């Protein structure tokens, strides 16, 4: 099955692309997709980095099964909002 992978912020910059199709075996989970991405794009360092994952724009766990056509977004901890000082603002 084929899913769409979207990357944001640091991850997008590390990979050099914002969106790409990924072929996965039927029945694959979010964790399987991350392992496949780690193999194909080691510069993403998804296995050692703190990342959030969303499937079809909802936060998801590694155990979640994926479906054909799903949108899998991978991104670092969010830092929107108030101002330019992540630790204090």
């Amino acid at each position: 099955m084929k899913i769409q992978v979207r990357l944001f912020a640091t991850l997008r910059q590390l990979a050099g692309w914002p969106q790409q199709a990924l072929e996965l075996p039927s029945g694959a989970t979010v964790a399987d997709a991350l392992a496949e991405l780690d193999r194909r794009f080691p510069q993403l360092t998804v296995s050692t980095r703190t990342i959030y994952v969303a499937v079809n724009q909802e936060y998801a766990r590694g155990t979640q099964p994926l479906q054909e056509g799903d949108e899998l977004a991978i991104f670092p901890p969010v830092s929107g909002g108030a101002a330019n000082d992540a630790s204090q603002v």
Partner: protein
Amino acid sequence: MDIPDTPRKLFEITDQPLSLDDAAARVARPDCGAVVTFAGIVRGETTTEEGPRSTDFLNYEAYGEMAERQLARIGDEIKQQWPKVASVCILHRTGRLEVGEPSVIIAVATPHRGDGCFEACRFAIERLKAAVPIWKQENWSDGSVWIEGPTQPELSAGADT
């Protein structure tokens, strides 16, 4: 603060400049006498443990569709927690922001000032910073870096992989 003829979005990710008067107009209701807003502004000077630091500008990137959905969910949470809140608007800007410009604006309208508008507005900015997929890149004279917020363990994909 005119009430517009056509309703504008209450939860919006936009690359356009933000306005408090605009946000207040979006939450205006004939029975609401109180509007509280919060604006997060790009600081030019920040005090850090290593002393003062100067910012040139910020870049904000958002996962727009998901971010607007998460903002609307914050609005739902507010109406559950403060049932007298009549309307909530949360706007976040993306792209390049200069010092002094607002990156986020929240507006909450209630009939009276004791109906939760202050508390709900504060809640909204706390929730936004924790869960809405937006990232900021800080730019100084000598470089730039993507800021990662504090980790929310309950949102991390690795929690049970």
